[in-house]
């Protein structure tokens, strides 16, 4: 059961170093040509590799307490404020629980949607990308 008090919960900032080897590994895993250049651009969904960099303190998703047997990943959106990051870039990510809302579907079931936004900034504090994860729990 989603805990509505998680709205606004914000994780501690975390570092994500965009690495050449990780880009090559991710390209292979997503059936893309493996880039040979020194500083390849990261693929469109690469920032999902934040899994490797976040800790319990930087990831507020656990505070939502979505029931894993009734919860699903419904949507994922990436927004880039310029070209996506390249190998060698260091990003600082911050995740927050941005929205929690309910909808009733056609069969009268209540669906609870939770949106977690992760902002990625460069060392100067300029926003590079935002990731919006939408999870849904059925009643």
């Amino acid at each position, binding site marked *: 059961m989603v805990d509505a008090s998680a709205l606004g919960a914000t994780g501690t900032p975390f570092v994500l170093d965009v690495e050449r080897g990780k880009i090559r590994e991710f390209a292979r895993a997503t059936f893309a040509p493996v880039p040979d250049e020194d500083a390849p651009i990261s693929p469109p*969904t690469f920032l999902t590799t934040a899994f490797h960099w976040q800790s319990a303190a930087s990831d507020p998703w656990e505070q939502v307490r979505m029931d894993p047997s009734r919860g699903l990943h419904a949507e994922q959106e990436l927004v880039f404020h310029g070209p996506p990051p390249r190998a060698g870039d260091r990003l600082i990510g911050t995740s927050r629980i941005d929205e929690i809302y309910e909808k009733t579907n056609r069969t009268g079931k209540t669906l609870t949607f939770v949106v977690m936004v992760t902002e990625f900034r460069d060392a100067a504090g300029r926003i590079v990308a935002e990731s919006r994860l939408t999870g849904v729990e059925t009643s």
Partner: protein
Amino acid sequence: MIPAPPPPLVVGPLTRTDLVRYQGASGDMQPVHHDEPFAKAAGYDRPLSLGMLHAGLLGTWAAGWLGAEHVRRFRVRFTAQAFPGDTLTCTGAVAEEHPDAVDVELSCTTQNGDVVARAWATFALEESP
């Protein structure tokens, strides 16, 4: 000038190794995608594929078409499940042209015609010389 879309990206039949490789690469080690007893306890016959793998395949196809450096927005909705043994076809088309960008719609479909993911993306267009 928008280049012609490439042929669809066809991946499959998906293997469990494909799922494990994606999980290791992404860092999402959710056991329902590789641990058979866990998947059965969760109500599935067998481990299921990952929505974010399907999103990644759509990203591969679209970046191959319009260039990874040009993507500015990539939104994917997960609409159905896929399993090892399924063959996925990723393709898409232009939805709307703007002076400096193009909106595209993408889909990832199983051999049975089930759409497992849809995506809406915006790519910046190179300035004309």
